[in-house]
């Protein structure tokens, strides 16, 4: 079947010839080499071996410090009041150091709540590769004269900033906003630990998506525990990463598998439950790969107690990623010596004999023995290394304990960024038009709301090649509501592509892609589906700018369409913007007119905050004047849609039209109503509302959301807090009934608010 890039028409005919699915073989523990072999073959130097040992010791020392500091017994800072989690990874050091040492310095990682080791290792490994100038940037105050001393200062600074983060200090990597479970150092490619199990996996997937698109050559190593591999968004991510369209003819010239390593830090316990024989049906999680990819993602089971085996596996996997053969999956078997946290004594679920047998294979002791056996270093040399690590950690710990706390008044600093992409970075690649930009038809200068959105997307994608668009059925089909029709043909499938029906991964991958330099616009079809992605929107997109201490911005737009009014029933009709307005960190935008839709969407795409961009299916067909110019409407500026002096109607979304209708009828009764369209719930332009209420003294707040918990309540209460003395009557709210959207159009008409409801509310207070 001939196919003209980028379009694709499936022509799959029925074929029922008997055959068998062959899942192939997944190798386990293939690494049989040793330190001697590594050195003999030149893959490692003696110094590298000592560095691997030292990096593992750094992790163990810091985590031992957490254990002892918690009980006030860490000698250098006795009785320090450490408040925070204690998810230590002691026993797993080889997985962190082996993996990070097998990656290139420019490769990315994401990790988990038990991620101190991964975070430390990514830092130490990268720091060891830096030249003197780069090292000096990390420690500008260092007085070191030699490379060795400079490196030592940089390593100590790394340990210090890690401990400072655990202790919630301003000098921490995330300025004390993230803590151990959300630690990140974007300067070394560490995109963040994640306290939501599995939460970082779609982020890594999105970061890999960005590397693929940017052709950066970087791989992303996604650390997640065995427990996470039962989590929906993780399974969504495996599928998302392995999509055929990345590697088959649909990819055109960019046939390249997603460069991601799904690194399962398999310590065999999800908190306390057993993954192997209790909560899962596979004995080896590596088998998961066979369910998602015809090539089994090159999966292997790896001995996670041997730093060399882990390093070897990750080197080979990252090489595959660089060759476009990703994704890869490594099931790395290791052991967590302590419990889930220090409050878990492990008595209920495993034997001390089991623990002892794993400790027999301790990764640090194993490497030490090999070093001593090879005569690379003497016992006293190794003792000196241990002492250096101990003293460095002690110095860092003392400094961190004494370091300045964040200022209490800065508690919500870093919630949002003021920056936008108004200026394109000079290295941004130019946009290529594959066939032609879609024709957007104007009638008397008017566009539909749908075309206004499309025009905004076209303009922004043409302007900035970092803007990519994906979601369910947005490509060939042009979106469920045809808002993206023609964009695939204009920009190609690497910028406009369909996704699996995986809302959580769609949103989560957008977070990772945004962190890695893209500006994704993702579409969720119905807003109701945003609840499928609520962790990725609320806990990830909204929080990372703050939790990272403003290291990173997350410029993404989630487009969600409200179906209310079409008789689609309870799961396709909800007006949910109030939920996201309650999540700090998100902007929430809801245009009511074609003009606003274009100007606001363009601003949303250029803004460096994550934006929930809500659209109404009731409005898609509405036409109004929309300039073909490149104009922006600033986020957080309300619009007075009609001026008046007797009563203020505050509203947004499709309710704006009802409010205008009500205002028209009130005018006939001699009442002058002012209609304010908030346009954005976050940021909220309350000043425009207050000025109006100060003028009129009366206010009705209207939205299509159900009454209870609606943002109308927030608006009303803010008015009474800030303009109480100007109120001549109680503020009234109008919304949908406190119920579930019904299918029956008779019931839905009764369910949704309309102009008559607004009129009634207004008359009651006039």
């Amino acid at each position, binding site marked *: 079947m001939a196919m003209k890039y980028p379009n694709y028409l499936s022509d799959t005919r029925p074929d029922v010839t008997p055959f068998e699915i062959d899942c192939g073989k997944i190798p386990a523990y293939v690494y049989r080499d040793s330190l001697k072999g590594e050195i003999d073959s030149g893959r490692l130097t003696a110094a590298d071996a000592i560095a691997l040992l030292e990096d593992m010791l750094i992790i163990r020392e810091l985590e031992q410090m957490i254990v002892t500091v918690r009980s006030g017994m860490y000698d250098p800072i006795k009785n320090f009041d450490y408040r925070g989690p204690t998810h230590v990874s002691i026993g797993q050091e080889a997985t962190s150091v082996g993996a990070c040492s097998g990656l290139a310095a420019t490769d990315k990682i994401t990790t988990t709540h038990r991620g101190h080791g991964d975070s430390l290792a990514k830092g130490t490994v990268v720091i060891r590769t830096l030249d003197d100038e780069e090292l000096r940037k990390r420690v500008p105050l260092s007085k070191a004269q030699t490379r060795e001393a400079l490196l030592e200062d940089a390593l100590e600074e790394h340990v210090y900033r890690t401990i400072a983060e655990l202790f919630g200090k301003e000098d921490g990597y995330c300025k004390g906003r993230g803590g151990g479970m959300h630690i990140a150092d974007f300067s070394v490619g560490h995109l963040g630990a994640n306290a939501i199990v599995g939460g970082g996996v779609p982020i890594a997937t999105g970061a890999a998506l960005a590397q693929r698109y940017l052709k950066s050559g970087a791989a992303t190593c996604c650390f997640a525990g065995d427990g996470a591999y039962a989590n929906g968004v993780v399974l969504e991510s495996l599928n998302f990463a392995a999509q055929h369209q990345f590697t088959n003819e649909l990819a055109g010239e960019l046939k390249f598998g997603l460069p991601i390593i799904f690194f399962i830090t398999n310590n065999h316990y999800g908190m306390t439950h057993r993954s192997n024989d209790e909560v899962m049906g596979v004995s080896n999680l590596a088998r998961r790969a066979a369910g998602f990819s015809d090539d089994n993602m090159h999966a292997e089971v790896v001995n996670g107690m041997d730093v060399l085996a882990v390093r070897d596996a990750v080197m080979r996997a990252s090489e595959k990623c660089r060759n476009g053969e990703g994704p890869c999956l490594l099931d790395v078997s290791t052991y967590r010596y302590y419990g889930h946290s220090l409050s878990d004594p492990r008595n209920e679920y495993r034997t001390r004999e089991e623990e002892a047998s794993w400790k027999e294979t301790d990764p640090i002791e194993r490497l030490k023995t090999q070093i001593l056996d090879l005569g690379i270093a003497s016992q006293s040399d190794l003792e000196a290394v241990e002492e250096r690590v101990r003293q460095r950690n002690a110095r860092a710990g003392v400094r961190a304990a004494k370091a300045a706390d964040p200022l209490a008044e800065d508690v919500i600093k870093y919630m949002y960024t003021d920056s936008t992409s108004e200026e394109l970075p000079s290295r941004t690649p130019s946009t290529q038009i594959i066939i032609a930009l879609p024709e957007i038809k104007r009638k008397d200068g008017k566009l539909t709301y749908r075309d206004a959105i499309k025009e905004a997307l076209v303009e922004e994608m043409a302007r900035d090649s970092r803007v990519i668009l994906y979601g369910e059925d947005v490509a060939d089909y042009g979106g469920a509501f045809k808002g993206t029709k023609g964009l695939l043909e204009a920009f190609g499938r690497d910028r406009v592509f369909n996704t699996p029906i995986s809302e959580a991964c769609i949103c989560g991958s957008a977070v990772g892609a945004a962190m890695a330099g893209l500006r994704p616009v993702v579409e969720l079809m119905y807003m109701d589906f945003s609840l499928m992605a609520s962790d990725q929107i609320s806990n990830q997109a909204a929080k990372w700018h703050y939790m990272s201490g403003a290291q990173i911005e997350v410029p993404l737009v989630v487009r969600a369409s409200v179906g209310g009014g079409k008789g689609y029933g309870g799961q396709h009709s909800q007006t949910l913007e109030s939920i996201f307005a309650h999540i700090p960190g998100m902007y929430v935008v809801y245009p009511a007119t074609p003009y606003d839709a274009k100007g606001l969407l363009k601003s949303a795409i250029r803004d460096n905050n994550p934006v929930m961009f809500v659209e109404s299916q009731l409005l898609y067909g509405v036409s109004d004047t929309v300039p073909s110019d490149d104009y922006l409407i600033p986020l957080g500026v309300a619009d007075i849609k009609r001026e008046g002096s007797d009563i203020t109607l505050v509203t947004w979304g499709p309710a704006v039209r009802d409010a205008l209708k009500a205002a028209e009828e009130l005018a006939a009764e001699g009442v002058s109503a002012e209609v304010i369209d908030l346009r954005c719930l976050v940021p909220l332009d309350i000043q425009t509302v207050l000025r109006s209420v100060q003028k009129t003294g009366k206010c009705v707040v209207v939205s299509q959301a159900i*009454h209870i918990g609606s943002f109308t309540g927030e608006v009303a209460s803010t008015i009474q807090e800030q303009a*109480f003395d100007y109120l*001549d009557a109680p503020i009234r709210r109008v919304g949908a*009934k406190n119920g579930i959207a019904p299918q029956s159009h008779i019931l839905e008409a009764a369910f949704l608010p309309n102009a008559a409801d607004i009129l009634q509310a207004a008359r009651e207070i006039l």
Partner: protein
Amino acid sequence: MPEAQSIQMPKFGQTVEESTVVAWRKKEGDQVAKGEVLFEIETDKATLEVESFLEGTLLKILVKEGQTVPVQSVVGFIGKPGDSVPEVKAPVAAPKPAVGSAGPPKQASVPGPTGVGLSAPSAAVSAGVPAPPGRLKISPRAARLAKEKVIDPSGISGSGPGGRIVEKDVISYLASRGYDRLRITLAARNLAAAQHLDVLAIAGSRSGSRITVADVRTAMAERPKAMSKMRKVIAQRLTHSFTTTPHIFVTVSTDMTELMGLRVKLKKKGVPYTVTDFIVKAVIMSLKEFPGVNSSTDGESVRWRANVHMGVATSLEEGLVVPVVRLADDMTIAELHDRIVEVVRKAREGKLLPDEMSGSTFTISNMGMMNVENFSAIINPGESAILAVASTTSAPVVRDGKIVVRSIMKMTLSADHRIVDGAMAAGFVNAIKNRLEDIGLWKSMT
């Protein structure tokens, strides 16, 4: 789970219908022994301590300090910690109908069983909820305008829902009062605002000219003060009595010369009877002779009282109280003396129990110490007469055809003319007079 026992607002005295909790002496969670003071109350007559009849832990205070509730309402609960406390709403004093209110105010409908507006697309109209008594119903905007204009909005009639005063009511009130023409200095206006005075009221006192600080100071000095609770009760009772009871007044002059002489002698012997003691005794004896005076009427029937409960009007700084000597009929003068001293002392100390302040059948008001020639009193509600006793003064009188100087005391009986005719009143006061002048009678008693 056992249920906690309720604490009731006690009923002190027959006429007390409601009382105010002034202060709780125990907190929730405190241990309470039998007989310990739990809280203080104020009736319309006095402040009293209420002791606990129960022992245990004060589990719940239902009636907060400052709240007024009907007597015998539950005010709290005592029990063992963990006992269940019944869901009882704090009782409220019966609302007093507001002047001009037309019928009971409409109660707001409460939407939905959980009160979250299950069906309403918009919240219940707060306008339908009646304002608590004494609270002016005014929108914040209207209140702000009134404040800005330095006027008192309480007289403005509200056109908003439930009679709420809204902005336009203030605007039209200002127009109707000619606010635009008001001339006031800035300093005067600021002072009036700070003093919460109404510039329109000040203007009323000095029409035409510009209002100055001096005018505001005058208004400050003349600002009406709220009556005390006691004064309100006095005002209400006297008004009621004087407007519903037709009074007649009958005055007699009594020659007190010999009785005063006896009193001086007795005093020297250490028996300190007062003039009041003699008058009270004489009145009691005369009431036995004229039982029609020891009576009361509701306008339909007449009730003769079997005993004499003698009210002795006593002036205090904050007003007048009438402590009662109950069952005074058979008391000797000595007993009367002791009892009168006791109740008057308690009255001055504010320690009268409600029953010691109510139920009198006749009252004596003695202003003898205050240098008055003569006066008349208003009948205490529930009685048919009151005796106003003036000062005893030296006066020239004719005795046996000669002008002599005698100690003369005038007494005026005020009587309810519905049940006491002029002749009965005259007979009664003369019976008192004759007894007081009969020195033999007193010598036999003392």
